[in-house]
């Protein structure tokens, strides 16, 4: 029989094998999106909650955690893009001659623009990382937390970053395309991994739409609230947390972390 290495090559070179890679990496990316959205929504819990969360992410596993996550996500993204591009090129070659009279019976609009929506999302992801992670804009890069000058003010950066009309507009278009991509993608994960059947078809479709709608609202509420100044830069929402946090400050090693913990215990952040 084949050696494991040869089997892996055969798997990657087969249509189904490459699709399984797309499905598994897609699942990881959807999981990341849900976590990323939940974390971002801490914006509405105030400056301290969001900045504490950012600090927590940067100090996970003594600072190694974030790099494990970043590298993992980058590998997943590269595999997802590489295999879909390869599959798309193969698909185009398999149907070189078009019909003079084209018709579609039941394929959704979203499913027919997966390649283009995917490429626009990729461009958006690169922009988003340069914007908020690498922070090529020096104005966004040098923002110390007014309450704790030693750390970066993610809260202020987000509000500042969404000031102009172009950035929120681009986010709106990109997130909407992302959700179009996911409305077909999430359900497809189940089919490609062989978990869809006539019995589960309905619930998979419902779950797919639910997650997509949740991500659309959860992600867009942030740039929209920032642009329309529904969230103030003073962080009034967090005043209660700061008072609880100051108590923890005197005892804890990491004041930020303690504050998140105490807030979670009291159920304030979660809401």
């Amino acid at each position, binding site marked *: 029989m084949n050696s494991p290495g040869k089997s892996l090559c*055969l798997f990657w070179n087969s249509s189904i094998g490459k*699709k399984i890679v797309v499905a598994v990496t897609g699942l990881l990316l959807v999981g990341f999106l849900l976590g990323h959205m939940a974390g971002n929504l801490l914006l509405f819990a105030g400056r301290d909650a969001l900045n504490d969360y950012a600090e927590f992410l940067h100090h996970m596993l003594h600072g190694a955690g974030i790099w494990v996550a970043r590298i993992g996500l980058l590998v997943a993204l590269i595999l997802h893009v590489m295999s879909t591009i390869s599959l798309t090129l193969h698909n185009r070659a398999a149907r070189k001659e078009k019909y003079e009279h084209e*018709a579609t019976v039941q394929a959704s609009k979203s499913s027919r623009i997966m390649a283009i929506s995917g490429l626009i999302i990729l461009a958006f992801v690169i922009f988003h990382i340069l914007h908020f992670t690498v922070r090529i804009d020096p104005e966004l890069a040098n923002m110390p937390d007014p309450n704790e000058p030693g750390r970066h003010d993610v809260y202020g950066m987000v509000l500042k970053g969404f000031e102009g009309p172009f950035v929120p507009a681009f986010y709106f278009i990109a997130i909407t395309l992302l959700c179009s991509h996911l409305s077909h993608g999430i359900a497809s994960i189940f089919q490609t991994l062989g978990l*869809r059947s006539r019995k589960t078809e309905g619930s998979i479709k419902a779950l797919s739409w639910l997650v997509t709608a949740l991500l659309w609202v959860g992600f867009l509420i942030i740039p929209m609230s920032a642009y329309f100044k529904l969230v103030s830069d003073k962080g009034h929402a967090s005043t209660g947390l700061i008072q609880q946090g100051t108590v923890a400050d005197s005892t804890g090693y990491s004041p930020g972390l303690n504050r998140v913990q105490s807030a979670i215990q009291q159920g304030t952040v979660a809401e």
Partner: protein
Amino acid sequence: MNLTLKVWRQAHADDRGSISTYEAKDIPEEASFLEMLDIVNEQILEGDSGEEPIHFDHDCREGICGMCSLNINGVPHSKEQGITTCQVHMRKFRDGDTIWIEPFRAKAFPVVKDLITDRTAFDRIIAAGGFIDVRTGSAVDANSLPIPKEEADSSFDAAACIGCGACVAACKNASAMLFVGAKAAHLNLLPQGEPEKDRRVLSMVRQMDAEGFGNCTNQYECEAVCPKEISADVIAKLNRDYAKAAVKEAVAT
């Protein structure tokens, strides 16, 4: 009824081909779609244009052989569900309609002439694994080999595939996953086919890829046009069985 036909004409495999327009006059409503083409062909032969009649595939004309093909107004076997081209009747069209008639399109289904395509790629996929090695003899006595009712039904549903290739023609990627899924599920679900399941799935999928069919993008156009209404469940099953067989091949045996 009088119709305008837009028909793909291609003299031979290497010809570029193009759409020709025909006026189909005095077509009876009760004629089948293929009978309508027969009438048009007679009109072509009676005329003095010296043109060859329109070539198209057909055989049983009762929806069970899988020989007839044709993309009718962009949909394989027409937009009517669960039937083959030979079962389409002209009463489904209206007087004055324009009908587009094209061959099934796929790199793996090259056009031989006009509307006739070479679908032997399907035969080679079957030859790669769509069989049982041992002689199974004639039908055994009922109940001597117990098979759960649900599995027998699922296998029978998959076995309804007539191999016409409409799934490939409807798929924008010209993927043969519904066909291969049906042929693999048909045997894999039964105790006679189960022992060779892994080898069958691996061989058939590899042959499918080698023939130049595309990859499934889960749009289920195949399911919508299948004259035997085979469910895309067989594709999910093929994906599952392939993943399991590939892992087994890599780490065991």
